[in-house]
């Protein structure tokens, strides 16, 4: 077994599979014993990063809990302004996209590049659909009605004087989550381009698919909690 220097790859005879990013041409860094060890180290690093993401959202959940305890009426009134149908639809969209991404990882493990590309494309469509529903059916109508966060609040038919605070938590929570959806979609697009252009992922080389998928699943996990907290609990 020998390592392959990414800068001086052991290229096979010139051809479609000659690119250094083609999965069979990939090696591992010299300080790892083998590709598996490198894969495990990468994944461990990704999990460590995901814990910091969980802690980021924990701050928002904590704000939600504290303000809910202080102003239960405002939270109940605010929740009534959200339509569970859009929240539920977005939950289904994200769960479905989590499934396609998990299937994409499986496809890469099986060496099925076409299935990987197909699953990634569906996932990206779901990401776009999520953001579209969020903006077009939720953010834009609410903001134009004056249901804006904090000091920008101008909705005249508020049922509680603390509704501006509810909207602050709502927009910060869902806004940071939507930002994560966009970042996750960006990562998966990168994976998709490399899969299409170089056939970069296969049974021995799919670290990037796996870590991007983990990020996407985290986005799904956060929404699993945001959805009932914001839309279902009155």
């Amino acid at each position, binding site marked *: 077994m020998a390592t392959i220097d990414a800068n001086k790859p052991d290229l096979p005879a010139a051809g479609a599979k000659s690119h250094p990013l083609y999965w069979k041409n990939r090696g591992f860094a010299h300080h790892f014993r083998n590709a598996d060890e490198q894969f495990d180290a990468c994944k461990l690093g990704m999990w460590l990063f995901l814990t910091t993401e969980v802690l980021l959202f924990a701050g928002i959940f904590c704000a939600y809990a504290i303000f809910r305890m202080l102003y239960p009426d405002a939270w109940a009134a605010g929740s009534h302004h959200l339509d*569970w149908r859009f929240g539920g639809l977005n939950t289904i969209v994200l769960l479905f996209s989590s499934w396609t991404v998990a299937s994409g990882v499986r496809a890469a493990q099986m060496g099925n590049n076409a299935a990987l590309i197909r699953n990634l494309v569906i996932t990206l469509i779901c990401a776009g659909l999520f953001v579209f529903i969020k903006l077009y059916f939720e953010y834009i109508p609410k903001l134009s009605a004056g249901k804006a966060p904090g000091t920008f609040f101008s909705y005249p038919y508020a049922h509680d004087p603390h509704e501006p605070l509810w909207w602050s938590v709502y927009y910060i929570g869902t806004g940071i989550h939507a930002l994560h959806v966009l970042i996750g979609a960006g990562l998966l697009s990168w994976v998709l381009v490399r899969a299409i252009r170089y056939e970069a992922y296969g049974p021995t080389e799919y670290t990037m698919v796996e870590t991007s998928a983990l990020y996407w699943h985290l986005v799904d996990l956060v929404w699993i909690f945001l959805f009932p907290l914001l839309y279902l609990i009155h």
Partner: protein
Amino acid sequence: MEHSIDDVHIPNPEFDPTDPHGLGHGHHGHHIITARTLMTVLLILLFFTVLTVALSRAEVWIQNTFDVVLPQWLNIIIAMSIATVKAVLVGAYFMGLRFDKALNSIIMLICIAAVICFLFFTSIDLGNRGAVSPLRATVLSPGGTGYGLDRTYDGISTAASPRPSTSGLPIAEFRRKERLAELAMEEAHEHGRTEPTEADVAAGEAEFWRIYYQDYVDKGKHPHRHEHDEHNYFAKLHFAHHDADGIEPVSRISLENVAESSPNYSKRLTGLTPGLFGDGSDHDAHGDTHNKSPNDNHDAAPADTAETDPDH
């Protein structure tokens, strides 16, 4: 065995210099989850999504149909339990923790334990500072005041508000009054007047409350039970839009009494930093004697004072 320094080294063809201890040969491979498992997990997740929505709708339906108010914790416990089950499924199968090295799961579990500590200690702090030191306990204006968003310091507004001031009113109240004035003016313009008359103001108010309760109806709430609705603070101030004598005067609804709307009002939460909320004024005009706060004790009976504030 005799060896000389210039013995020729004969390489072992089995020896791998990148793996001198042969650790890499136990190639364990990666677990590939079957497509069937993934599909099953997706279907279970979708089922739980439908279930949590259905239970939430059922709660609303029960409240409206039988005119009962279910306890809020019921809703929270059910929704959070289902969300936790869903999260475990996503983590175990979609993220592959079940088939992964235990280290990854341990790291995430430690993180979640940290989050639970974070939430728990912040939550118990909120209402219990008085238990630690009575001096630190103060009245927390129940339900808050909503004030303070356009305070100025040395004449410089600290708010990024698009509006320069709300005249010291909470934003929600300010906007309500603004809208009432707008509707009265629209009513006046419809009748070719430049200034709204008393009739225009009344018509504007009627329009306002029509929209106010229409919004309620659109949200699936029963339009005629708002007096019993614990979430409607106007209702709790005894406002009813269908009083026998027609439209209620808006002046009856004042944000000064908004504290009464909070379910915690009777409990009189104590705990936040003194002076942060409320001005310490006496809200006991309506005969609530059981909820004396430390701030009210200046004119309270000595026994009462000794009970809550040892400094006196």
